[in-house]
């Protein structure tokens, strides 16, 4: 990481600490914001968060690894999460997933070659009455067909 990048990241974290407070209870809020802007939580950010909140970096790492939405490695720019829980499964999530994989040329658990997408399975998204369901970043899409799912992804910038 370049020094300028490091400095920018430090500044970003400092302002988050200012916004949420220096207490340990700010940790997940800070991690949430960093994850959102950087799509992962880089090593350097972990160290800086630890330093500014006065906790051990291992504590930060251990919290990150607990939560499905937080990750330490960079992933494709747009996070695609298709529900794999039973109701969506029975409503045809397999066909949807296969169509997405064919179209993007990568498997679930991988980023697409152009790094535009990362595909993963999610547990129940709370949209079971409108399955199959998926989330692309914060937006959700319901009643998917293979064709509709692919169209949605094609429309993502």
């Amino acid at each position, binding site marked *: 990481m370049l020094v300028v990048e490091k400095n920018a990241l430090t500044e970003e974290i400092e302002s988050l600490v200012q916004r949420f407070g220096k*207490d*340990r*209870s*700010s*940790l*997940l*809020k800070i*991690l*949430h914001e960093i994850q959102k802007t950087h799509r992962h939580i880089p090593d350097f950010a972990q160290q800086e968060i630890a330093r500014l909140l006065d906790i051990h970096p291992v504590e930060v790492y*251990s*919290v990150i690894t*607990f*939560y*499905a*939405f*937080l990750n330490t490695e960079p992933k494709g720019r747009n996070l695609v999460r298709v529900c*794999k*829980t*039973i*109701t969506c*499964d*029975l409503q045809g999530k397999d066909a949807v997933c296969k169509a997405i994989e064919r179209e993007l040329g990568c498997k679930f658990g991988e980023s697409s070659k152009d790094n535009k997408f990362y595909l993963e399975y*999610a*547990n*129940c*998204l*709370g*949209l*079971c*009455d*409108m*399955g199959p369901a998926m*989330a692309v970043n*914060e*937006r*959700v899409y*319901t009643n998917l067909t293979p064709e509709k799912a692919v169209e949605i992804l094609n429309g993502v910038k």
Partner: protein
Amino acid sequence: MENKRKERKGAVLFTEYKAGKSIKKALSMKRDDILLEIKESKLRGRGGAGFPTSTKWMLTAAAIADEKFVICNADEGEPGTFKDRVLLMEYPDLVFDGMVIAGYIIGSSKGIVYLRGEYEYLLPSLNDYLENMRKDNYLGENICGKSGFNFDIEIHLGNGAYVCGEETALIESMEGHRGEARNRPPFPVTTGFMKKPTVVNNVETLACVTKIVEHGGAWYKEHGTDKSTGSKLFSISGDCAKPGVYELAWGTSIKELLEFVGAEKTKAVQVGGASGVCLNKTQFDRQLAYEDAATGGSIMIFNESRSMLHVLKNFMEFFVEESCGQCTPCRVGNIKLLEGVEMIESGEFTFSYINKLKDLGKTMQVASKCGLGQSSPNSFISILENFKDEILNNGNGGSNGK
């Protein structure tokens, strides 16, 4: 998603309500009198465990501390549950008014909604709604002119962990830790968020309180059964013509519910989500109520074309992923149960081993540290019991309600 508030019908929750009405009424009453109304209503928690709400609030009200918290549990991660999404989207007035009333009763000035990260798309409208409440002085200082009563609500987003719906794991998570359940006692009512007295309630429970304050405990109790008063929101999904969220009276039988949503050729009904139990045709006379088939409201319907082993495998995979790994019965037990399902799938199983796994499940029910591991064996045990002929006897044997 469209807002269907105008079309929804119900006896208790899905009824007319003018935002702020119950807050005003509550603030004109004595705290103890509101608690008595809630006690009279016999309201029990809608998050699954069914704990009497008045008892929880009395304990927190009685606790002495400089700060107390009201937490609305909107983590809604149980597979097949989505009623809280509907309440938050279409009935934020009922939910937030309930939180303000809770704050008044227990003497708290801070409410926090723990919203599952998957519902982040609800955040803008919820924050707008809260902002309007501030403008109308339903939040803020000296609420509605009640001097000394200050209360505000903030929304905390979850980060994708089912176990964080468990109240002590939720508190751990809000304090910036891994979402690992705590040993209890102490209970959150005395030692909760930041070690302060805290009430944690489900979204629907809080909405019920608003209605109880509006119409009284006696009115509320007229609905439902003696032990399960009021009504219940059911999240109904799977093989039926009209999946969705419906308000039905407690005591409705499964058969009636299936008819109501237009389910045909139903083979199985999973009551209470992945951590609930699966019933076969011979059990469809059972009633949805705390005293019979208890549920946080998740109803999943499977028709005759579905493989129950496939259903069970999906549930067990869920628990293996979502176990926090803190205690051995749950961390190892769920993996063993999933392996058992895979053995059956490949035909490489013995009856004696499957029976051992059922015993393991019973051990998990008593030895696990939190509700996740205590309830995850429910589907394993009930599906292998209620669908044993389909799964273990090649369809022969006459059970499965055929």
